[in-house]
């Protein structure tokens, strides 16, 4: 009888350039099994992707958010976009940008007000659950010190950035700040963005907003830093009566 061959376990050799990992979070020097990514690395990738997928399908924790926001003593209004569920939200961005009829009825402008804060789930509801309250804490105190008047806080489910235009407009706000969950990445599944629009009206495009992105506590912008940056941009927008690309250009003009 023929002896079966001796087969040794695959030894995944370490790449000689592994020390370069200290310069980047990219998946460098991960070694090879044949030409393939070694299983341990592949499983890590799958876990990160799974986390990002789960982040997209997570839900806004309205109860917890409400509890966290109660300290600010502002009324809270609960709103919903025209996207009825996540699947529709993903396929129909147009519906995520507009309020449903019931929500529109909840918003009435009695008098002109300076700032409205709009909290929308976006593509990472969990980021919004995590970072809304910490950012608002810093930002609201700066806004109060500067004597800006503040509209009721709006919490919007299945919302995209532009829903802040309609909401801010109906509230009669001079400026809207949208807190929204950003598209999750493998390394940052729970990242929040802030979008600031002066004179919010339906139909604004991205060029007319300021954006602060990458707010999270895993190497991103901290809530305090985000609030500080946002407050600077808010003051700027009120000074120039403008936000976004054109405001940026105006700000740069004196230097040139």
């Amino acid at each position, binding site marked *: 009888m023929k002896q079966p061959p001796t087969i040794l376990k695959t030894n995944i050799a370490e790449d000689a350039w592994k020390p370069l990992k200290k310069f980047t979070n*990219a998946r460098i020097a991960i070694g090879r099994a044949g030409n393939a990514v070694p299983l341990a690395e592949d499983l890590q990738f799958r876990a990160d992707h799974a986390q*990002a997928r789960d982040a997209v399908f997570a839900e806004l924790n309205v109860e917890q958010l409400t509890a966290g926001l109660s300290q600010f003593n502002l009324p809270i209004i609960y709103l919903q976009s025209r996207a009825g569920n996540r699947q529709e939200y993903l*396929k129909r961005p147009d519906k995520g940008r507009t309020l449903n009829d019931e929500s529109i009825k909840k918003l009435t402008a009695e008098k002109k007000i300076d700032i409205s804060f709009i909290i929308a789930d976006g593509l990472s509801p969990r980021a919004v659950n995590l970072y809304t309250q910490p950012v608002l804490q810093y930002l609201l105190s700066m806004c109060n010190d500067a004597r800006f008047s503040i509209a009721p806080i709006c919490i919007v489910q299945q919302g995209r950035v532009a829903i802040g235009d309609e909401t801010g407009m109906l509230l009669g706000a001079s400026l809207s700040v949208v807190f929204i969950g950003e598209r999750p990445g493998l390394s940052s599944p729970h990242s929040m963005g802030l979008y600031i629009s002066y004179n919010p009206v339906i139909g604004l495009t991205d060029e007319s907003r300021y954006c602060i992105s990458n707010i999270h506590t895993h190497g991103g912008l901290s809530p305090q830093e985000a609030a500080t940056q946002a407050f600077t941009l808010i003051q700027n927008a009120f000074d120039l009566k403008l936000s976004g690309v054109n405001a940026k250009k105006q700000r740069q003009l004196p230097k040139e």
Partner: protein
Amino acid sequence: MPYKSTIKNITYSFADLKTLLAKATPLRSGDVLAGLAADTYIERVAAQTALADVPLKIFLEELVIPYETDEITMLIIDTHDANAFLPISHFTVGDLRDWLLCDEATTGILALLAAGLTPEMVAAVSKLMRNQDLITVAKKCSVITKFRNTIGLPGRLSTRLQPNHPTDDPRGVAASIIDGLLYGSGDAVIGINPATDNPSAVATLLYMIDDLRQKYEIPTQSCVLCHITTTLELMQRNIPVDLVFQSIGGTEKTNSSFGINLALLNEAHLCALELNRGTTGNNVMYFETGQGNALSANANEGVDQQTCEARAYAVARKFNPLLVNTVVGFIGPEYLFDGKQIIRAALEDHFCAKLLGLPMGCDICYTNHAEADQDDMDTLLTLLGVAGCNFIMGIPGADDIMLNYQSTSFHDALYIRKLLGLKPAPEFEAWLKKQGIADDGGNILPVANNHTLLLNSFE
């Protein structure tokens, strides 16, 4: 003039050519979002049936976007080569599909035909083709381009090394470049998407790659994928720019939303040619496209996203690019919903571009809100490898930590090369051997920590 077809005694009517093209398109979320898709499965087949009978000549008369209001339509019509078109001028779209699949449609004849075909003709025929048809015909098309090496030769597959970093940190970028080179990637281009469009940050990156390239005599080209106006400014300041990058679309309005037009592209093209930095050739442009970019700019003009995409190839073709890349799954699920739609779109884009004579590559990719995963990318990579795609992306572990999406890894490139016996560009292949990175068979070799690429790199 309405277009009609009858299936099982029911007659379907389509108001005009652009409606017919849209309704004949295989299902995708972006056309549904635009309100252009067929309402039923049978209406889609009816549209395909009617489209099959449309003479190709009609495409030169009935324009999907008016000549007077769109400079890309103008470009398509003004540069159409009637002489090249003559041999198939008696064809319908259906005749073209059948003929393309026959042995008479050789590589040489297809190359001669390219200038006689318009994007709309090519988009139309693709809508009648199954995935295997798109692969069969694309494989017969050969488009070879040159700058410091030779891309697109038969039996070759190149990679764009994409070493992005969230803050453009030069050391972080360099670490990913070294990783990629040691895994045999980077012959199409070493191309960085910058996190900001700041000219001095871009210049820093350009100097860094250029130094690396010269120091190790790497036969490849570099690119920082910033806005073309930034690149123009850098070229005027004599910063080492190899390739001029720009995202382009298939309608004038789409390009306006990108802040570009044909005149600006032309200016940058001429400026890059003047630098004369290529050694094997002078294809100096790098374009990126992707289905859905017109609609996302509210500039689709009632034209389906795949036809808009094919029209972008008319823009690319005018400037003899080194590389054209469809970033197929980056745009998101509202345009291409899942792996099935992404795969189909990538095969269409590759086919259409190749038939029009473009050096097409593909960023085989998806975002985390799309119904897709690495398995879908493996499928698409294998199909595009078989179809003779010119180049793919190489990203550490397939995970772009700046753009937050997933593409193909250096490992994926090694997989497809080994599986199909494909090699990098010949000049780059020779360099990999000389550096002891790959053996004669193209297998990657382990390197020691005193390898020349690693010297002084750890501080």
